[in-house]
């Protein structure tokens, strides 16, 4: 087995465990590259079916091209799509034009997710986070419990080994299932290449720029790049010393922003 085979098998194992272990799981999808790998793996795990809904938390600051991809992908793959927006916060005037990015991220992503979870009663959320993205994500478990307030108790995480995980949650609580934890950014690209997974075009160079990590429009910045193919991107990543999420403003707004966001329930 190649390393990619091992990662693929592990992710499929985790997804099948999640589907068996929980009553109402759902998968988070941002249309980004990791999300699309997640979708692809789910299709593999369930032999072409998608036995749980796919949730997109729409901040209303999405790139139009990503929204086009959302429409296309839903038709192409065929799954139940739930789009959720925290309209209440938008009506209160929360937005990048008026508010700091950490607050906006919390309101339009974390709180929106909370509302969606409460509305549908999901007890597990399958997410596409990876350990190499951020030092707080590096400490994550494959099955990571969140209490009813969405808080992550990162100081006292349950042990998990020998393929045994936390597959139960109490009322109001949920478990984050994170099948891509062990994948690196390069693994993702190699896999996208190997499997020919469809992707939004914004990851590839146009006019000397490309997006390495995609979030809300006002806070996602492209990087200088001439990488027009996945091979180009992989070559670029081998030599880059800029971290993947450097272009994501909310992470860097203040010291330990990611930790604060994540402790409160951000992905």
């Amino acid at each position, binding site marked *: 087995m190649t390393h990619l085979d091992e990662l693929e098998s592990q992710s499929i194992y985790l997804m099948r465990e999640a589907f068996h272990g929980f009553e109402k799981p759902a998968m988070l999808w941002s249309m980004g590259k990791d999300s699309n790998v997640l979708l692809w793996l789910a299709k593999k795990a369930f032999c072409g079916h998608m036995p749980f809904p796919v949730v997109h938390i729409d901040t209303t600051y999405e790139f139009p091209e990503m929204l086009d991809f959302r429409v*296309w992908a839903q038709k192409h793959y065929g799954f139940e799509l739930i789009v959720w927006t925290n309209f209440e916060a938008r009506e209160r005037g929360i937005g990048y034009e008026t508010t700091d990015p950490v607050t906006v991220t919390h309101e339009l992503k974390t709180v929106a997710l909370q509302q969606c979870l409460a509305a549908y009663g999901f007890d597990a959320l399958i997410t596409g986070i990876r350990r190499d993205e951020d030092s707080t994500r590096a400490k994550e478990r494959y099955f990571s419990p969140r209490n009813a307030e969405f808080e992550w108790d*990162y100081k006292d995480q349950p042990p998990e*080994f*020998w393929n045994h995980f936390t597959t139960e949650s109490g009322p109001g609580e949920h478990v984050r299932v994170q099948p891509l934890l062990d994948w690196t950014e390069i693994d993702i690209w190699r896999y996208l290449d190997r499997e020919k997974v*469809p992707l939004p*075009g914004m990851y*590839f160079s146009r006019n000397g720029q490309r997006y390495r990590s995609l979030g809300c429009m006002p806070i996602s910045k492209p990087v200088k790049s001439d990488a*027009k193919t996945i091979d180009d991107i992989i070559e670029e990543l081998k030599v880059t*010393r800029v971290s993947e999420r450097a272009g994501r403003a909310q992470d860097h707004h203040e*010291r330990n922003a990611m930790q604060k966001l994540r402790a409160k329930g951000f992905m």
Partner: protein
Amino acid sequence: MNALSEATLPASPAPAPAAPAAPPSVSNHLQLVVVGHVDHGKSTLIGRLLFDTHSVPDGKKERIEAASKAEGMEFEYAFLLDALLEEQAQNITMDTTRVPFRTAKRSFTIIDAPGHKEFLKNMITGAASADAAVLLVDALEGLREQTRRHCFLLSLLGLRQIVVAVNKMDKVDYRPEVFEAIRTELGEFLAKLGVEPAHFIPISAKHGEGLLKASDRMAWYHGPTLLEVLESFRANPPASGGPLRLSVQDVYRFDARRIIAGLIESGSVSVGDSIEFVPGGKRSRVKSIETWPQSDPPPRGPVGSGSEVAITLEDELFVERGQIGAPPGDKPYEARTFTARVFWIHDIPLRSGELIPLKLGTQQAEARVLGIQRTLDAVTLETGTGTTGEVKVHEVAEIRLRVRRPIAFDVGGKVPALGRFVLMRGRRIGGGGVIDSVVDEPPETRGTSPVSRSAILGHRGCIIWMTGLSGAGKSTLAQALEQRLLSSGILSAILDGDVLRTGLSRNLGFTADDRSENLRRATELAIHLADAGVVVIAALISPFRADRAMAAERAKERGVPFAEVFINASLAECERRDPKQLYKKARSGEIKQFTGIDSPYEAPLSPDLELRTDRLTVGESIEKLTEMALGLARPLEQAGLGAGADI
């Protein structure tokens, strides 16, 4: 659609991935755990390795530099890992961290396991998935408690590729004799555990000596550098040579197909293979291997170990999660009783006699802890003296387990993944274990005997007959015992004299005849309950030897285990306690024929257990009582009396 991406949207489903030009046929990725005593320099070592191999993104290093500055501290390599606020404050790594890095030769994931004692669970979480381990020892401090403990757990987890790095050589002026002394001492300790490290290497993580290149300061050392050793380790090859073991995760019926999905723990699966599902023993052949996207022609295998697979069978079998697919000629054990070495990582100890959920592969079953043979001190490797009846947090023990229904497993490292299990404490893993041997069961109990109550309950009914003066402590102890038994999953019930008097015996008085009749009724009721599997705790004054002898005799006739327990406190003490103010009333003549005052109490001559409640604490009494009750409720076969009872 064209607007989305010219380059990446395929016009049709992707074909099965063709072999790339020069593929690594086997994974060369190494999962590495770093263990050792707190403050022996794990985070510094990892930070330095990342830095020296140019694996640190610029953004990260700048962030840490800024953070160090904000804390008024000089930049430390350890900060590269210890990115959470609290950790920077305490300088202790808090949880398992996984960091990828690569060299020209291979890619690695470093799993940083903490050395702080209460975080042992994180170390196990990290080490259980590692291919190799770096064991760090501080040259100045030498072997410490956690050094030894981690050695022990590495051996139990089955890690065999270990390199010892003697760190902080700069602090001992790079003297070879310090290094040699540690090598000798640790080498001997590891040898007792059957572990032989690949190398001992003197290093200074802080100064980057001995990691990537040999150190000028230690010209006396002629062995490889740490990185050379790490690059030489094997990425653990899955046991592909062994027999097929397919752990069934689920059976999907999304459409007309009945798809069995699971993990190939060892061996391989091809279309046409005979396959038997244990426990159960139903057989069929593999009809298809299901994939998405579908390929043409459909795959026929073999799909090898470590892979997830989805298959259909030629016959419509009822297969379910937890079963193991295996070749009919080379199946795993299917049994209920086995011995195992376990490590315990939960604050609530594992108790002898308790019923606890066990998970092995995708199987789940309730297991009874039949006995704790011995606890091992992971630091001294000495066997615990005297059985405490429990395994406390961070202890290691040899235990005997019996599951309620047969499960499938392998022993002796044949298929490691199916020889190890976890025990659940609530939603959390309480501990893990490795099965050492199957315990033979008498033929009568090998699954062919009719289902008995004790097989369902995991224990047998019996009668604990507590006799003693009013106020001696019968009711208190009965209630405490009942709680202990119930919390261990043992069905128990109290038969209380006062309660009987308000119902079943309410037409009786306190003459000798009436007292005898009362006890006769109590005895028969207790026998019925015990027959149904209940551990009956009779709390009855029962003052006369003849009545108690009658009860014991009747129980014996009916084959119900019976124990007489004398709850003994002096009359003076009972009268002082007088919880129900009955002595007072008896002394004043308000009630007549009160035992101890104007009616005799005949103390047992040879009780099965005597508890001097005026000398023992309630806790001490309960311990003795529980131990006796567990012994009595244990099935015959386990009590060493031969076959006849299940579990």
